[in-house]
């Protein structure tokens, strides 16, 4: 198993990858939050933020086709979720589809929610495409997330690979013994694999703990020096955050 495809543009040198991971996380968060916080109907403001995201995509040297491909999965999910709005939001009915009615307000809300979601999603996709997991973890540490959480993620990352390999082995072994079972049988098998996975994860954690103790671990995971900030990055990030906040605020004042 591999998630390596996720960050294939992390090693491509661009203005985005040269910025410290922390700045990238903050920028993506600012754009996503700013977009998500736009009041319903603020189409112009959404347009400006969408333009901003397009600029970031260009600066990251990530091909548009890749962004679109990455967007497809989450977008389908968002589309399904927001389709509900078409029918659930009250207003003047426009179209009747069988027993369901689509209202004008429903259509508007559907469109705007979808728009907000797409822009925020794109910002997140750019982040993950340009930032490797170790860099992301470094950023989360620098952003002062609780040490327990960054430690869980740091150790969980390697363990996940080992665990998924073991689960796949278990699944293969089970399949080789009973090539085709019914749904009930498959379900019972999966329960067994999940339970085995659970005890293996904790057994591996225990052995890792011993290996950590052997190298002087006393309870806090130390970390290497993170990539340092430079003035340019700090400046660009500040401008970007101020711009996003200004756009979101002006939208709220208008609506």
């Amino acid at each position, binding site marked *: 198993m591999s998630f390596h495809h996720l960050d294939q543009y992390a090693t491509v040198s661009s203005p985005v990858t040269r910025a410290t991971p922390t700045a990238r996380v903050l920028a993506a968060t600012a754009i996503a939050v700013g977009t998500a916080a736009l009041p319903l109907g603020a189409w112009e403001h959404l347009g400006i933020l969408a333009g901003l995201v397009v600029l970031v995509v260009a600066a990251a040297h990530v091909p548009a086709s890749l962004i679109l491909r990455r967007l497809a999965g989450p977008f389908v999910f968002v589309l399904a979720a927001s389709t509900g709005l078409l029918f659930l939001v009250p207003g003047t009915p426009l179209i009747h589809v069988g027993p369901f009615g689509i209202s004008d307000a429903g259509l508007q809300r559907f469109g705007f929610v979808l728009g907000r979601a797409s822009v925020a999603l794109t910002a997140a996709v750019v982040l993950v495409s340009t930032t490797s997991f170790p860099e992301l973890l470094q950023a989360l540490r620098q952003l002062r997330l609780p040490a*327990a959480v960054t430690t869980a993620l740091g150790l969980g990352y390697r*363990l996940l690979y080992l665990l998924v390999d073991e689960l796949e082995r278990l699944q293969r072994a089970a399949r080789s013994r009973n090539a085709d079972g019914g749904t009930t049988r498959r379900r019972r098998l999966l329960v067994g694999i999940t339970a085995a996975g659970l005890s293996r994860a*904790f057994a591996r954690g225990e052995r890792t703990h011993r290996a950590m103790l052997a190298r002087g671990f006393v309870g806090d995971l130390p970390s290497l020096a993170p990539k340092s900030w430079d003035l340019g990055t700090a400046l660009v990030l500040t401008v970007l955050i101020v711009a996003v906040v200004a756009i979101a605020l002006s939208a709220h004042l208008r609506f």
Partner: protein
Amino acid sequence: MAHIPDGFLSAPVMAGTAAASVAGLAVAVHRSRRHLAEREAPVLGAATAFVFAAQMLNFPLGAGTSAHLLGGVLVGTMLGPWAAMLVLFAVVLVQALLFQDGGIGALGANTLNMAILGVGSGMLVYRWILGLTGVGVRRRVAAAAVAGAGSTVIVGVAVAIELALSDTVPLAPALVAVGGGHALMGIGEGVITGAVLAMVLRARPELVGGVPSPSGWDRALAYAGTIVAVTLAAGAAYLASSKPDALEAAAARLGIQEFETAYLAAPFADYTAPLGGALMAAVIGVIVVFVVAWVIGRAVTRKRLGV
């Protein structure tokens, strides 16, 4: 829709849920450290990897549908509620950042729902039931199954309320659609949680956190809690059926203005009418799910343990 994407929540809801999550996580960090001490790092790492891996396994439910484990209650029975909250937060965080499963802006809401409320309510139900019944292997499995189902429903209700407060969808249809969906997921969660816990209790019982046998006080508290909850539920039902205006007024005060005045799209208009309010429909739905989960939980324990 357990993971809310960006775009569905309003700014105040994002800010409020984020603040609540930060507060909840702060408590969890403190309590988890005290509970796990220097074992904390590897144990949390292992549990995080497990939840992540378990969420990749799809359980066939029949009729071409499948579901996966959420894992909050299962991990809670191993590590206690506080550490489990941190584990679920770590998972939700990575899902948002790496897989766009849930929005970055909606991270506060998703954390509140799945890590804080999901694990917290599930573990409350688990301890509550054990307080009523005492701790045995079968009782624990049944309690975990019910808690798993119940916590999933709570997550669904929380999502619905957040969507309604954001003015994205009116509360009543949101409760029916999102809450109903989660009620179905809850059945799967309950069954899987119970079945996996039963196997772990048999193969590696030392992994499951000990629950002290309830003292007289614990039992009294659990019974008192049950009586209060039933009384409240009965009172709410009476209020809803006899004086629907009072409930509406309460809803309006909570900022859920569109409660009754709204034009409801066709299917829900019929649905809600005979019950005197969609809220009642949701409440009844939740109770039905609890009962179903309870029955399934009992069935699971009997089958898995061969008694």
